[in-house]
């Protein structure tokens, strides 16, 4: 486990920021950390990168206890606020970070060009950061986080200021990094994005983890199938019972059937065909991250 926390708790005065967070992130994963505004996502990341001290609990990042500076050589961080010295140029900024990282002077130049190219800012190496647009500053932040080719990247809402193309670009960037073995801790509330890149996720709401696991695990479970028919039809009770299905909706030429899992879909279709109906289409109503998110977060609010 590249990140591991045990009961990590943070109080801001008497306000709870994180409540007994237990997390493990395996190496090589893209880990999505989701939650509504003010849930405590940034709080956890700041503890993991050592900007704030936990009130209680413990954690390890890259095999070192939280706050240890030596592990930071091997990690990168994009803060939620991504602010940099406006009077510097990206080349100067990255040179500064390179020196703090202990990189050799001869490595810094090529690494700078490499990461700036990756985020699409290769032409802006000598523009003052002050003159950058917000999205450009965020891209620069991503470049800065990637400078030393870190094993572990913490990105706190890396696409909050980016346009749709930029988002897609970052998505591809993340998948590319993952292919090279980088572990990525991604804070986000953009569920569709997380769904597209993450291997595992955790959902935090009001300082507590309310769901966690691999994406496929969380998204399996009961599923719904919509069946379109050539003519009005109502399946027999026994047919449905045979596949442990329940009829949720029944319009004359359309059925919505609930199943315990997606594995039961072929059997259901076979049984319906066997009964003699003509099927025009079958659509699986996908349980997606959004449903999961809304369920877990609103469950909390009611219970």
């Amino acid at each position, binding site marked *: 486990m590249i990140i591991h926390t045990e009961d990590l708790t943070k109080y801001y005065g008497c306000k709870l920021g994180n409540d007994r967070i237990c997390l493990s992130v395996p190496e090589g994963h893209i880990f999505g950390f989701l939650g509504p505004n003010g849930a405590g996502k940034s709080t956890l990341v*700041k503890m993991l990168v050592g*900007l*704030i001290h936990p009130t209680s609990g413990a954690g390890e990042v890259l095999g070192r206890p939280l706050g240890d500076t030596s592990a930071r050589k091997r990690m990168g961080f994009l*803060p939620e606020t991504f602010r940099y010295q406006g*009077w510097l140029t990206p080349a100067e900024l990255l040179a*500064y*970070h390179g020196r*703090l*990282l*202990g990189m050799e002077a001869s490595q810094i130049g090529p690494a700078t060009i490499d990461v700036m190219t990756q985020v699409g800012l290769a032409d802006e190496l000598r523009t003052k950061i002050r003159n950058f647009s917000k999205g450009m500053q965020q891209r620069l932040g991503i470049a800065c986080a990637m400078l030393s080719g870190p094993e572990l990247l913490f990105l706190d809402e890396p696409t909050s200021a980016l346009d749709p193309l930029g988002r897609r670009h970052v998505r591809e960037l993340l998948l590319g990094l993952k292919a090279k073995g980088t572990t990525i801790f991604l804070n986000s509330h953009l569920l569709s994005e997380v769904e597209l890149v993450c291997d595992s996720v955790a959902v935090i709401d009001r300082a507590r983890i309310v769901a966690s696991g691999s994406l496929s695990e969380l998204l399996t479970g009961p599923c719904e199938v919509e069946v379109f028919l050539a003519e009005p039809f109502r399946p027999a009770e026994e047919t449905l019972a045979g596949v442990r299905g329940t009829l949720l909706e029944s319009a004359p030429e359309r059925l919505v059937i609930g199943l315990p899992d997606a594995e039961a879909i072929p059997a259901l279709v076979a049984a319906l065909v066997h009964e003699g109906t003509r099927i025009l289409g079958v659509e699986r109503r996908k349980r997606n991250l959004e449903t999961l998110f809304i369920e877990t977060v609103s469950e909390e609010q009611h219970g």
Partner: protein
Amino acid sequence: MASVWTRSAARRVLAVAALTFREARRRWVVVAAAAMTLGYLALYGAGLYFASRDIAGGAISSMDEVTIKMIGAQMLSLGLFPSSLIVGLVAVFSSVGSVSGELDSSVAHGPLTRPIRRSEYVLGKFVGLAAMLTVYSLAVMGSVVGLAVGFMDAPTDNLAAAIALFVLEPLILCGVAVFGSTRLPTLANGVLCTALYGIGFIGGVIEQIGSIISNQVMLNIGIVTSLLLPVDAVHRKAVTELLPSGVLLDPSGGGVSFGASAVPSGWMVAYAVAFPLIMILLGMRVLQKRDL
């Protein structure tokens, strides 16, 4: 704080220091101060020039060698105090936001998640500012002494020691301001440091009057304020080092605050040298403990 002083740590401190130095040079306080300083030096130089011309031209009748030397020394000692005041204010205002400014704007989140200890960061900030202030105060105090010696042939005694002490003054203020900025917002820190500077100055005046009228309570007040901020003590020590003894017209140096009665002890000087370092160590501790 048992940190191992390694080469890589030194490199990181230097990286922060170099950036801080570059930033300080282009800050408006420093640019404005540099302009004002040039104006002030021009004015001072003009005063010295006209005074020297009249003396040389015999406009002031029958002045003997000793009197001329005394006037030279007087003019020099007059020029020192405003100069050190300007340097001191520049030191305060260039340093009060050194850490807090970067924390408030969250610019510091970048560097402080790199493999640099927060203590190294604070030290780097101080070193960068101290370098800028050393250059600046050397230029200012050097010019004042140079002008007075050049125009008026002002006598100097222990020039090197005096200049070193003049340079120490802004470093003391810088140390306090950097320490304050690890905890306080920039504005509050600025107010606090300026007030402390003022208190130290008043304390110095009280101590000098105390020394003239031999009042122990007043002397003690001066010692206490010097312990809080030894800038004024260092200034008095610097003036005594610079001017040969007995050369000033009156023992208080032409107005209590400009001169150097109640000369600080060697202990006070040692304390003043250690003072910025103590401040920086405290600043390191404070920043280490704090949430960013």
